[in-house]
């Protein structure tokens, strides 16, 4: 095989080549230092690009966009501000909270400029948290984040291996999060799955998504800080979900939205 072109090298870095071609390029990289350097520079510039744009994901979504998504094209800035002033915040646990993500997003939208970002936040009573369950989820997250090779903490199913037939794996790649594997745990006596995602942006990850069966009633999304990590959690239709990581709550809210949509978990 000839020395890989830039096009083949980029495709290799993006994981878009067939296995046989990947193996050949890997051999080239082993013996060609200049090619390795070029690959490293391409990887670095790609990581910089993602970092430069990732901040947009953490910004509050402007009200006018939420209004546009809901088909409310009559609102002007003045009108939306007036509507915001007369609207009352919904309490956690109100069943209407679950009337679609549009309604939930509008609640968050009206809190723009409240000084606590675009969440309803702490001025509503938090739902009763399964503190022990969340503590365990946090401990497991820290355990695997801080593990090194000597700890032999492998995955039950690693990325690329076959998952069980009914396993619906959230795709978080658009958020810059790469799935690494699943670990099956027992938390508070019940089976749980810990999905582990990593990213080249240390402000966003790694991220653990914990999903477990529960007999407890549904609870609206809420968040807490456990030591150095943030925990975003909710319960819906017999399953408990927790996002554990160091990313800020704005980002975790967006991830929760996407996971909820993918798994119909809201």
């Amino acid at each position, binding site marked *: 095989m000839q020395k890989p072109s830039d096009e083949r090298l*980029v495709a290799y870095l993006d994981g878009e080549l067939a296995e046989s071609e990947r193996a050949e390029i890997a051999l080239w990289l082993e013996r060609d230092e200049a090619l390795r350097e070029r690959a490293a520079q391409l990887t670095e510039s790609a990581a910089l690009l993602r*970092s430069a744009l990732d901040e947009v994901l953490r910004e509050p979504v402007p009200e006018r966009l939420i209004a546009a*998504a809901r088909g409310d094209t009559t609102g002007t800035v003045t009108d939306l501000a007036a509507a915001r002033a007369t609207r009352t915040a919904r309490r956690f646990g109100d069943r209407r909270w679950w009337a679609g993500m549009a309604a939930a997003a509008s609640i968050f939208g009206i809190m723009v400029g409240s000084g606590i970002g675009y969440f309803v936040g702490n001025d509503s009573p938090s739902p009763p948290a399964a503190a022990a369950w969340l503590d365990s989820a946090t401990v497991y997250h820290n355990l695997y984040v801080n593990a090194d090779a000597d700890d032999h903490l492998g995955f039950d199913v690693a990325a690329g291996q076959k998952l069980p037939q009914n396993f619906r794996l959230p795709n978080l790649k658009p*958020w*810059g999060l790469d799935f690494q594997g699943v670990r099956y745990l027992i938390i508070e006596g019940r089976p749980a799955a810990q999905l582990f995602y990593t990213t080249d942006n240390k402000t966003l990850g790694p991220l653990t998504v914990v999903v477990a069966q529960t007999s407890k009633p549904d609870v609206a999304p809420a968040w807490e800080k456990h030591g150095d990590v943030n925990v975003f959690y909710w319960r819906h239709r017999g399953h408990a979900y927790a996002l554990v990581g160091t990313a800020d709550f704005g980002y975790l809210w967006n991830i929760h939205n996407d996971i909820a949509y993918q798994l119909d978990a809201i």
Partner: protein
Amino acid sequence: MPPGFRAMSVPVSDQLIAVLPRLRRFARGLTGSAADADDLVQAACERALTRAHQFQEGTRFDSWMFRIVQTIWIDQLRSRDTRREEVEEQGMHVGTDEPVRRIEARLALQEVRIALRELPPEQRTALLLVTVDGLSYKEAAEVAEVPVGTIMSRLARARIALQAKLAAGGGLRRSASDAKAE
């Protein structure tokens, strides 16, 4: 075990709200301007709702929206003088007590955004779809409505150009980890 049920049919407006952050990121990369990006996303939302009947259930909603955003953007570019794209200059305020490392990190990210804006539109689109948003080549080709080979070519040229611009400007001299320190 996690739920394995299939996602039920979700109203288009709910799907739109879920994908808004990613659409904003895509539009920001295309336009280089926060205000223009949000205008673009708003226009895309309005178009999506009027054409909701054209969305095929079972296909990727995000890809459909990326295509709408891109189409509107290209139409905007063609309708005005594209030789000198007006780009919002966001002055970078530097605090006097800001650590040097942090300033350098922000400068590196600023250089990346400038380098992105200097790429031709079709390369910028390929870069944003694949490298930033993680679409596969096939998915990006469907969004851009070009063959996969064309996406590969545009993407490679974009990646090479981006890396060269950053290397020339010194952006890569500041390590990626420094930039992430921002």
